[in-house]
């Protein structure tokens, strides 16, 4: 196709796209106007029904809990895939980054970075733990908490401690923890079936006070397991990728 023809094809297609796009925009509800009924219904019933004041978590782990199981397993499968694809192959060996780039001298981790990252590791663990365990009371949840927890491990690596990173998160253990997190969620749902209820029904006592930490039954428990699973997944993925940067395919001579 000659460039001139190609340009015409693009211009016609582009004009058509813009026209349809603008036409579509005119049909949208006004900015800030929510026309659907579901949000309003949930807003008025969620706290009374679930005793969870973190309504987003109530939706995630209760009203659409089954969807969340699916999303959970997307991450699980992704982490499994990464660790399968990046596994050690025959003919690959570990080599430190220093040997690899002799012309580029990698500066050692500065004391400032080491100091700051190690200083932040503890608070990061606390915040992650808080987020994962308070989904029922405030805007947070297992996912956010899990990623923050994983960040703590990344901080340890940033402090220049890859060996410590490896020691505190050995792949076998991370694998197992991840599986426990994912299975925990699924099993909470199965337990409901065992009790003769629908899958993922909230069968634990809801508590009396909305917003109390011990309120909302299975919502808090599921959030906890999601936090464990997400933290382990991220640590696993980052760990595998970190290992890759130290891993060199052996030259075939």
């Amino acid at each position: 196709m000659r460039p001139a023809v190609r340009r015409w094809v693009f211009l016609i297609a582009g004009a058509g796209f813009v026209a349809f796009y603008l036409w579509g925009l005119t049909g949208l509800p006004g900015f800030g106007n929510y026309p659907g009924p579901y949000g309003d219904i949930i807003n008025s019933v969620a706290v009374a029904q679930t005793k969870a004041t973190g309504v987003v978590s109530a939706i995630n782990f209760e009203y659409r809990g089954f969807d969340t199981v699916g999303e959970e397993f997307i991450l699980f499968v992704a982490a499994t895939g990464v660790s399968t694809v990046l596994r050690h192959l025959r003919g690959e060996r570990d080599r430190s980054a220093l040997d690899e780039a002799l012309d580029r001298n990698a500066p050692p981790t500065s004391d400032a970075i080491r100091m700051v990252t190690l200083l932040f590791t503890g608070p990061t663990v606390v915040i992650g733990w808080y987020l994962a365990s308070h989904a029922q009371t405030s805007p947070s949840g297992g996912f956010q908490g899990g990623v923050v927890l994983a960040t703590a491990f990344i901080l340890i690596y940033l402090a220049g401690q890859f060996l410590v990173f490896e020691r505190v998160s050995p792949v076998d253990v991370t694998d197992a923890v991840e599986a426990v997190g994912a299975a925990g969620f699924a099993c909470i749902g199965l337990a409901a079936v065992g009790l003769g209820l629908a899958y993922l029904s909230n069968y634990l006592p809801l508590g009396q006070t909305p917003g109390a930490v011990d309120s909302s039954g299975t919502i808090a428990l599921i959030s906890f397991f999601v936090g464990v699973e997400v933290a382990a997944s991220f640590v696993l993925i980052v760990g595998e990728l970190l290992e890759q940067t130290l891993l060199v395919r052996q030259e075939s001579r």
Partner: protein
Amino acid sequence: MTGLTTGPAAGPVTGPVAPHIAAVTTPYSVSPALMDTLQVVVLVLVAAGATAVVLTRQPVRQVIVLSGYGLLLALLFMVFQAPDVTLSELTVGAVALPILLLLALAKVRKKEE
């Protein structure tokens, strides 16, 4: 709908709630004009940030700019009253994604040498 057996079927929160929740749900007001201004400012910042990410050509620098853009997006969600999404964006957009990209870049660069 979900097999809930306790609690009234409908209606707003009645009766006692935990103290920290009561403190949060105490009515407060922000003038609509101020809120509108904030939203417009943050939207413009996000548009500028996205443009900056695209215009940065050097990959490592681009990752750093992308991380800042993640922070701006988190701010956007905050201003539009979605704290849950803010937390997700903060952790994934500003930390996890840049880390993965930096690691990938380190690996690719090593192969080139």
